[in-house]
């Protein structure tokens, strides 16, 4: 359905594209993270992808680059859809990986980027309010990372010991 849009994107930014596929009917482009904002601005401005449907991430532990941030876009005019993926590298115990925030293009990215930060520890450069959204502020770690054990428990207990 939006194969034409995918071809236009490849023609416009040949150097930004890492790979493309249309498996299961979902047209997908993997782009370099440094070109994210220019590609997204062009997609919204020139191809009319004015609706950010969904923003999430996947942790491919053991693969380099380790993370992928996934954007699902839709054009309200033509109804066509496109998936953009951005690989994000992360060193073993280095700083948190970072990618540009698209909140200036689609305000809908606000909480979704906060959720990805909360769950995967990927920072969004330029996000005005990057706090945890589902977990509490005292939580340590990022639970949807593959190296976060499912059985790990972090109860939030506040006790006042001053009376003892």
């Amino acid at each position: 359905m939006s194969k034409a849009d995918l071809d236009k994107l490849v023609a416009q930014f040949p150097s930004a594209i890492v790979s493309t596929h249309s498996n299961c009917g979902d047209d997908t482009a993997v782009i370099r993270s440094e070109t994210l904002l220019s590609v997204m601005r062009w997609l919204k401005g020139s191809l009319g992808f004015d609706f950010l449907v969904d923003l999430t991430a996947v942790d491919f532990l053991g693969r380099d680059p380790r993370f992928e941030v996934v954007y699902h876009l839709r054009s309200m005019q033509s109804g066509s859809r496109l998936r953009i993926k951005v690989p994000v590298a992360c060193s073993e115990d280095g700083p948190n990986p970072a990618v540009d925030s698209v909140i200036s293009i689609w305000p809908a990215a606000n909480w979704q980027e906060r959720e990805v930060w909360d769950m995967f520890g990927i920072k969004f450069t330029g996000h005005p309010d990057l706090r945890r959204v589902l977990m509490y502020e005292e939580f340590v770690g990022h639970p949807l990372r593959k190296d976060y054990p499912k059985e790990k428990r972090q109860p939030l207990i506040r006790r006042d010991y001053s009376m003892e």
Partner: protein
Amino acid sequence: MVFGMPTPDEIVSGAARELRSRPQFPPGFGEDADDDAPLPTEPMTINMGPSHPAMHGTVRIILTVDGETVKEADVQVGYLHRCFEKEAEYATYTQVFPYTDRLNYVSPLLNNVGFAMAAEKLLGISDKIPERAQYIRVLIGEISRITDHLTCVGASGMEVGAFTPFLWMIKCREWLWELLEELTGARLTHSYVRIGGVAADLTDNFAQRLRDVLAKCREAMVDVEKLIVKNRIFRDRMDGVAVISAEEAVAYGWTGPCLRSTGVPYDVRKDHPYLVYDRFDFDVPVGSTGDNYDRFAVRMEEMRQSMRILEQALDQIPAGPFKLDDPRISLPPKSQVYNTIEGMIGHFKQIVDGVKIPPGEAYSYTEGGNGELGFYLVSDGTGRPYRCHVRAPCFILMQSVPKLIIGAGVADIIPTFGMINMIGGECDR
């Protein structure tokens, strides 16, 4: 002197300090006895929630109010986070269905259908699902949509003082849930849909019973509208409150009845028809102003359209199998499991290993009760999802709540929140 008690001097200085910190009146204040001069005010921070009797679900809003006007709002969700996406990575695809029941728990079957369709898209069997199964999915999905809207409209009405409509609508919901209970065995968490079809065929007199219930629901909805549509209190609380424009709604990622209330006719069932929705004649109601009343009216009309779809589906539903006949995807019948070695092994392999889905990724989207319900699945070739992400419509709606309530009164939060229809299970996952 008692230790810790303030000395008389301290008390005096404390009083003096308090006197000094009182608001300074503008020069000339009170001299001309002008009653219209604004009183000096200072902002106050109050907590709404996490446990508030008038809020749906557990959510906390930190409000900065100036008098009755909301100046700032920080919405904090997550109190009902149950690690759905993490748990799903450790469950077989079939075991994820009970978790999806608990996402939007007033329309569980819509979530069931959404997840099943995502898995089927990844398997590449979307076009092989038997027709009868597709019609059954439409039937249970539209019944769930009606129960979802009934709860939303009824509860919001109750919160602005209309208690009787709530009772009538919950009564209708109960009739529909009784019907679903008879069909699926559970009143609320049905887990009725499977990859490749549904768990069981329709019960014998399902069609007639559904028609009877729909007739009763139609009557109840007329009664409800008579009570509240021209009610002064209801209209004053809903009309023109929390207005959002179509452009803003699109920019904030709104979908579902809330987006349609602004006049954007986006409905997944119409724009990207799935299952057999292209065979039904139904309309997509839209609002014009994008206020709370429009969101109410769109939901009321959508229920009527769902009833139209249900009646057409009952007329059209063909006979035939209700699940895909493929031993790699559907469980064998119990008579084979207990009596043949092949059946038993097939059953065992599916329960232990799960349905094997080839590596890949797929995003499947359906029209849920609150908007576009999307499932993004990444498979690594095993029987368990590598990544299962759900695009929860009300999580995305919730992020624009501060925008809606800033500038409104504290009392306006309640109907606004009710019409956004935050479902804690879906928002927090």
